[in-house]
């Protein structure tokens, strides 16, 4: 490479033209003007977002620091509401159920969704119809699903308890027994959520190049090795994203629980969001209720950050 060409490339890398440095001030002023224009253009949107999202957040934060009611802010109590919430048995019981509900909801729906996505990837007859049918739990409004599940399990004469009785399993009280109620609510969540996971996984699976599998087969990899060595790593990024989203959905899920059990029996299925709702709108304790909501938010952010790091890690690998 000649010295003149090398010099020109060096100038180009430094942003200097072949003809010389030119007038540096003019483009910088132009850039500044452009940035200002852009800022002015997006300013209304930023203000709108701040107004819509920021104001309620600040207002709610203020409520969590006061002993108020639904219509009045009340006396400032500092962090008392947070301290009271964190030392209450009800909060920790709800937190424990939230963890169980979230773990079962995320991984249960993911496993089911992954399995069905893999099944639908194979050539089966009427796969399009199956896909539509499998989407129904997600498409149908949760209030309808909850009513249907209630019809199936609520009373001893409901279809599922009668089936259990016919099979000699006694008459299980699916919503009246605390343990069974917790299991039923978690299963309901998995049933409502698996189509979402199936869609996410199906989408990720279509992006995996088929030649990778052909190469693996030629190298003698069996189906299990292909699944663990190729499929899972290649859809890892999408999987982590779906886990993050489903975690947020589960922790914030109010209707699934509230419509089926109301948080009962005896708080066996009370999650944090249900507890927050009941504290504010049934006990009329605004400060503690909003404090619970903020604690939930903080926890969710931490979990999301951890999972997001995992995404970055998987992207680098």
């Amino acid at each position, binding site marked *: 490479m000649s010295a003149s060409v090398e010099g020109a490339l060096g100038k180009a890398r430094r942003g200097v033209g072949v003809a010389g440095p030119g007038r540096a001030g003019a483009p910088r002023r132009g850039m500044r003007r452009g940035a200002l224009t852009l800022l002015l253009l997006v300013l209304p949107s930023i203000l709108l977002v701040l107004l819509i*999202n920021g104001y309620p957040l600040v207002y709610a934060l203020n409520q969590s620091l006061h002993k108020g*009611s639904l219509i009045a802010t009340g006396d400032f109590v500092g962090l008392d509401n947070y301290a009271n919430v964190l030392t209450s048995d*009800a909060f920790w019981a709800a937190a424990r159920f939230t963890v169980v509900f979230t773990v079962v909801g995320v991984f249960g729906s993911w496993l089911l969704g992954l399995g069905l996505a893999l099944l639908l990837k194979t050539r089966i007859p009427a796969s399009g119809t199956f896909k539509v049918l499998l989407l129904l739990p997600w498409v149908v409004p949760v209030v309808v699903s909850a009513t249907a599940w209630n019809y199936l399990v609520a009373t001893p004469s409901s279809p599922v308890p009668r089936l259990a009785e016919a099979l000699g399993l006694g008459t299980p*009280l699916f919503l*009246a027994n605390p343990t069974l109620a917790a299991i039923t609510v978690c299963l309901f969540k998995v049933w409502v959520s698996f189509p*979402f996971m199936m869609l996410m996984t199906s989408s990720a699976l279509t992006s995996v190049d088929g030649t990778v599998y052909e190469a693996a087969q030629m190298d003698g990899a069996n189906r299990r090795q292909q699944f663990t060595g190729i499929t899972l790593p290649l859809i890892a990024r999408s999987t982590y994203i779906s886990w993050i989203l489903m975690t947020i*959905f589960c922790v914030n899920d109010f209707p699934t629980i509230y419509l089926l059990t109301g948080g009962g029996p005896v708080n066996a299925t009370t999650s944090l969001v249900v507890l927050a709702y009941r504290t504010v709108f049934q006990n009329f304790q605004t400060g503690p209720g909003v404090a619970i*909501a903020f604690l939930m938010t903080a926890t969710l952010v931490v979990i999301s950050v951890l999972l997001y790091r995992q995404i970055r890690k998987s992207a680098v690998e």
Partner: protein
Amino acid sequence: MSHPLHQNPSTPITPRGTTTRRGFLSLSAGTASLAALAACGGTGGGSASGGGGDTIAFWDMPWGEPAYNTAAEKLTTTYKPTGENLPAEYQTVQWNNFTQTFASAIASNTGPAVSTGGGFQAYQYAEQGAIAYADDLLETFKTDGIYDDFLPGTIEPFKSADGYVAVPTQIDMRVWWYRKSIFDQEGLTLPTTWEEYLTVATTLAAKGYSAYGTGAGAGNFNGSQGLVTMLINNGGGFYNTDNELDCVTDRNIETLDFVAQLRSAGIIDPAAVSYTTDNLNSQWRDGKVAMGIFGAGLDNEIGDTSGDLRVATPMAGPHGDLGCLQYLNNIMMYKNTPSQASSEAFLLYWFKNYGTLFQQKLLNGLPVLQSVVDLPEFQAEAQKAEIIKTWQPIGKTFAATGNVVSARAAAIDGGQALNEFAQTVLSGGGDSRATLEKLQKDIEAL
């Protein structure tokens, strides 16, 4: 609250790491916060504000048949104010999220001038300075002769230290009902004491019937209200005669022991703890419940007006006490009104004319005015007339055995403490004293 799954899952992440960590954090925090705070946010009020314009905004709840609100609106719009009084404007507020609807509207000064609402709503808003007291209105009622028309004991519970927080419009009661055909079929007679009830109920349970029809599942307060009725029936309640919270009493313990006996004898359905209103209504409709505590409109509510569902006679407790839980639904005025005189003038008109709604049989509740009770149309509703005759005189409010209802009653009725208490008792868990001690502690924390 929106369904979380309806959030757009594709928004936060763009392909190949174009989302920064900070952007992602903001987004996830925002998503979480908004969803959480949505649980605590108001749903907005209505269109009419009590504090502005040239009309009196009247917000009314669905108190009965769907035609009720249409008829109530017609009654409102046919009001012709005299002098400088303002006309009234009607708006229906659904029960779903009504607490949020009122709270957000009142907080933003877009609420009504006059409204019906939750049974204890007036006490709450009076405590927060939003209620216009009804003392002057009641004075007008005295000169107009309406005051003496109220059934005994229906006005006094609304008296607070600062004045009357509301005026009663309807009575809702929790009374014992039974299915006559089952009693006839089994050759049973109606019990008049708890002891007799236990014998009858045991017989019914042996035949596969529920003799304590109840439910305490999602959104169903029948279980807790039934238990309060039992406590009152045995001369108990949450308060003592000095109006102090006093849940752990011998009478209350005795009542819970009796209920535990019903539970262990199979008289209370073990699944009832999770029954929603629909589940319980189905049990009544299908003839699986032979006896139980319910509101005044059971027959109408489950659509069985054949006359087979009948109101039972009050049963004396172990010490001879009679009693049941009584709600006094009411109408209240707010300080945020374009004209207090107009609010009162409208209510005077309302009370003089609202008997027509009972004549049309549109309400589930019971009238508070003797003149309406005496109407032939109301007397034709045999079960309701019977409730007024035999149960209303022994009805007590949530303040029992005291007589002062406070804002706290709103948090007790339908709150976490009472719901947990009912579910604990109906699921047969816990010692009676310990259960009541927990209830006392939970109510004190409200």
